[in-house]
């Protein structure tokens, strides 16, 4: 699978490099934009005296950056868990319809019952679970092969995408909350969004710590895992709930995005190996970095216009997906 031998030293090195890269990118992202301030001004404005520009950056740019970091981590781990459950390297919540199922539920609630917005992730989760079961049932033929999963997933994705886009068009308004879900637009995210995302992220992190060691068992055949005393179907179901939950939270707060959950775990596996106790935290870190990078590129590449992070991910992710599809037979080992 990879030419890198995953020694403890190299794993630690990759963690340090990625943490440093994320810190540097975050610092750069704070300064990139219409309002330019020095870091000195920024620190003074935040902690010593009121500064109008710093206040604007604090209210507009910082929540967006934190949302990108948290959201990227959630989506990357969601994709990783999905690949573990389906023992399928091409699984991604954005590609096979989980995100669009969540988005459809979110769009419905946002447009019809805006008062329910604080509990939007719950409805988003229900939509994601419906899409997941639809894909699982339709793709099941004694087993689930990568190509069958992709074909069924693309069809389910198209169905829900069509539904929520049609619904959005019927309810009008391209700047509504519903539209921001569709476009994965994080331009107008607030500290309230950060708070919601952070609460779910903490819950998800605790669940991931509990489940990480068990995920390694999913890489073995069902019979082997069963022979080790594992209730395989129950474990798959629990991990499935977790990845749908992560993808749904992302969709409810940020919107739909493809390829993020696919690419990050793959890069993670190449760099730190397939042990989920290491791969889950690393994917979270790398996901945060990549999504913030995509958002930062998107808002600076054609300034003053913005290209959404989902479009940047699609442009990068499409070709990577094709390469992975061609190599899928030897990516997950023997």
């Amino acid at each position: 699978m990879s030419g890198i031998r995953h020694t403890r030293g190299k794993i630690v090195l990759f963690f340090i490099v990625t943490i440093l890269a994320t810190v540097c990118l975050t610092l750069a992202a704070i300064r990139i934009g219409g309002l330019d301030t020095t870091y000195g001004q920024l620190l003074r404005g935040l902690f010593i005296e009121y500064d109008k520009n710093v206040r604007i950056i604090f209210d507009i740019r910082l929540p967006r950056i934190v949302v990108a970091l948290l959201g990227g981590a959630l989506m990357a781990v969601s994709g990783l868990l999905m690949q573990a459950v389906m023992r399928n390297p091409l699984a991604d919540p954005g590609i096979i319809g989980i995100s669009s199922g969540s988005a459809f539920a979110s769009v419905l609630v946002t447009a019809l019952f805006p008062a329910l917005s604080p509990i939007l992730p719950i409805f988003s989760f229900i939509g994601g679970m419906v899409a997941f079961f639809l894909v699982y049932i339709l793709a099941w033929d004694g087993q689930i092969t990568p190509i069958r999963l992709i074909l069924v997933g693309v069809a389910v994705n198209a169905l829900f995408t069509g539904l929520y886009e049609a619904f959005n068009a019927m309810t009008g308004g391209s700047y509504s909350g519903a539209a921001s879900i569709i476009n994965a637009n994080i331009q107008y995210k607030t500290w309230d969004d950060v708070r919601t995302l952070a609460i779910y992220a903490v819950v998800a992190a605790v669940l991931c710590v509990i489940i990480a060691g068990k995920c390694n068992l999913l890489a073995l055949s069902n019979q082997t895992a069963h022979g080790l005393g594992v209730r395989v179907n129950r474990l798959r179901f629990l991990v499935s709930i977790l990845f749908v939950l992560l993808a749904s939270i992302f969709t409810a707060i940020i919107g739909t995005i493809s390829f993020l959950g696919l690419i990050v775990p793959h890069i993670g596996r190449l760099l730190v190996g397939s042990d989920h106790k290491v791969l889950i935290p690393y994917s979270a870190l790398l996901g945060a970095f990549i999504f913030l990078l995509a958002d930062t590129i998107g808002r600076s590449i054609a300034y003053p216009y913005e290209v959404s992070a989902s479009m940047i991910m699609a442009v990068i992710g499409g070709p990577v997906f094709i390469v992975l599809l061609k190599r899928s037979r030897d990516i997950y080992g023997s």
Partner: protein
Amino acid sequence: MEANTPVFRTAGLSYAYKNGPMAVRSLDLSIVPGKITAVVGANGSGKSTLFSLLTGYLKPDDGSIYLKGQDIRAVGRRDFARQVSVVNQYNTVPADMTVRKLISMGRTPYSRMYHYGLTPEDMEAIETAMEVTDTAQFAGRAVSSLSGGQRQRVWLAMALAQSMDTLLLDEITTYLDIHYQLELLHLLKNLNETRGTTIVVVLHDINQAMQFCDEAVVMHQGGLLAAGPVVDTITEDVLERAFQVGVHITAVDALPFCICSLK
């Protein structure tokens, strides 16, 4: 458990795959403790289905299976895995997983909720399993980089790390060259003699079954054709009925040897 209580006993055991014929029908069977039992039979005779039923992977349509006198429906999965290890014919493992890591997974039935870290007992069981199977020499290598025979020894080591007293193996010599086949079978024989491990092994090679096993279960069309000590069960008459071939059993260097021909 009394010393002569069968490790496994089945009563009226039946199973049919969806839209298929009965793969196992009304099977009454006992596995003697402390012995090596071969399960033999033609393709489609129900050997692998019986194996999957004994491991608990398949649930019987009818009948019961008893593990040391207790109905296995009343035995928890982890309790079962602490008593019985399973080595399957087909296995998958991530390409970069090391031998030591895979063998340590054998301690899963003893793990706690968080599944982090290994206890001194875990470490001892893993070291012993590697020593017995002679796999310590490639403990740090990726399982995927090993030869077929070496890999089977690693899977066997993982099973031994479960610290159990019964071992179920499904056609583990298939696809191995004769050297690795014999190496593996000698290893099993040694385990049985030195530790008293009860071994049930699905085998295709009749000669190996006669040479390495104490007991045999001969399957035919989902039913039991013969069961008991090898000398009484693997006979010319039984084999002719089981495989629909002509059979002549002779002795070569004091070992039984089976010569088959198409009828």
